[in-house]
């Protein structure tokens, strides 16, 4: 196929791997902004999720944020923030709109998974811990959080993958990152570049998924045999080498 050989040629051209608009620097931009957005989402959503899960107050808020978050089009957020960021925020074109859209995108999965994870901790166990004289803070930090970690990391993984994938849209709004190759490819009618950019973003997103899947597994408590039977499918999904 002609498109495929052009795509391979694009990917293996050495000049595409150097300079400020080369693949490594676009990749770095992409990863940096994604990491910043994931970090801030975590910093905001984790404490709120812990609070809601522990006190069981504000559940309505968490459910609403979870549902609304799924419905919020990142594309629309970028478009709304763009003109205001140009006027009122410093930094390069498109940085803030992309960052804000990604940050908002990361909140619902982390928030929902954190408070569901905390709430899922067996009520009798919590009762017993309190009976042993543990304070509310101790119950949260020594019991609830450790047990909720796998689910929290799963939320983080979902957030990170969505953020890495959506950071692509920033290029439509003048920002850099790997989306640049796709948007520029469209403008130049250069299919090889479009395919190359799409391929790189997809690989990055899959690596994020697999990497955080590993972390999730490392942090998960040993499973009972029944649970392991159920969990196996997901592990295979996470560990199968991409591209097969």
């Amino acid at each position, binding site marked *: 196929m002609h498109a495929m050989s052009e795509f391979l040629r694009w990917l293996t051209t050495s000049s595409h791997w150097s300079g400020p608009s080369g693949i490594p620097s676009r990749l770095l931009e992409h990863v940096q902004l994604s990491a910043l957005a994931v970090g801030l989402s975590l910093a905001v959503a984790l404490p709120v999720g812990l609070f809601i899960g522990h006190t069981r107050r504000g559940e309505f808020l968490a459910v609403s944020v979870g549902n609304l978050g799924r419905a919020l089009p990142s594309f629309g957020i970028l478009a709304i923030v*763009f*003109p205001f960021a*140009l*006027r009122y925020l410093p930094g*390069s*074109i498109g940085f803030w709109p992309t960052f804000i859209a990604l940050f908002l995108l990361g909140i619902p999965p982390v928030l929902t998974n954190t408070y569901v994870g905390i709430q899922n901790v067996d009520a009798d166990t919590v009762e017993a811990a309190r009976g042993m004289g543990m304070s509310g803070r101790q119950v949260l930090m020594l019991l609830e959080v450790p047990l909720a970690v796998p689910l929290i990391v799963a939320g983080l993984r979902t957030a990170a993958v969505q953020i890495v994938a959506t950071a692509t849209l920033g*290029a439509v*709004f*003048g920002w850099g990152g790997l989306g*640049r190759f796709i*948007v*520029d490819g*469209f*403008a*130049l*009618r250069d299919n090889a570049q479009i395919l190359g950019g799409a391929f790189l973003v997809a690989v990055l997103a899959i690596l994020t998924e697999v990497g955080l899947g590993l972390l999730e597994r490392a942090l998960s408590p040993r499973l009972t045999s029944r649970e392991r039977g159920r969990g196996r499918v997901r592990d295979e999904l996470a560990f199968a080498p991409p591209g097969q």
Partner: protein
Amino acid sequence: MRYNRRYALGATLLALAFVAVACGSGGGTTGTTSPKGTLTVGVSGGFAENQIVAEMYAQVLEHAGYTVKRQLDIQNREASEPALKSGVIDLKPEYIGTLLLFVNPQASASADPAQEASALKPLLAATGITLLNYSQANDTNAFVVTKATADKYHLAKVSDLASVAGQLTLGGPPECPQRPFCIPGLKTTYGVTFGHFNPIGACDSATADALDAGAIDVALLCSTQSVISAKGWVALEDDKHLQKADNIAPVVRTSVDNAEINRLLNAVSAKLTTENILPLNKAVEIDHEDAAVVAKKFLQDNGLLS
């Protein structure tokens, strides 16, 4: 591969069903079919000026008794050219210089519209498309700076940029670094090399916004974008003629074309000029009036609907 094919096929079938339904229920057209038949008017891209001119074509045809359908949100030429060739649309307004380079990337566009039109005509004819008369409305590329920047660096012409460009940031369409009318041409024709280039969009107001906010110093815009005069900006004179002529002209599928259609559309071209299309663009781009309303007023004022 098998799954892909299967649902591509399914998707196609359902998409066709959807299109059929959408067409059946679509639009505000009356149910009666005129004896002169139905024409679908499209655009070359989904921006204001193109939609206004497309509306003009649509309305003169309607006035002459044709049934007209409109497809005015086609986003770009990559979509509108195949649509015209395959008969999804029957005609659209085009920009002769850009279209020439689109049809033949090796062609040399020039500042002379007559030369471009004669080069374009046979290329289009070979694909079953007729180029009608071009208008005097020339929407070419322009390097634009704010009044403050122009004063600060004493800029009036593109060649004035040569000594200061190294300190300035250019913003424009993503294809700029590769296209002769932009960065490569600036370098070879003018000896102008910018310190930095920021890809944004092609003649969109995001690029204008960036210029307005000072995020870029020079913007490549379209010369008829109304924001330029609304903001009191300076479009630098293209003193060494880097930019091609991009006059607006109708292109029609040859198989539906006839003498009456030619006469009607050429009459519109005869009235359009760079000067009189500017306020129309402003009415749509800045005051957000509807292209149809703006077009109708122009046609009435110029006696094209009588």
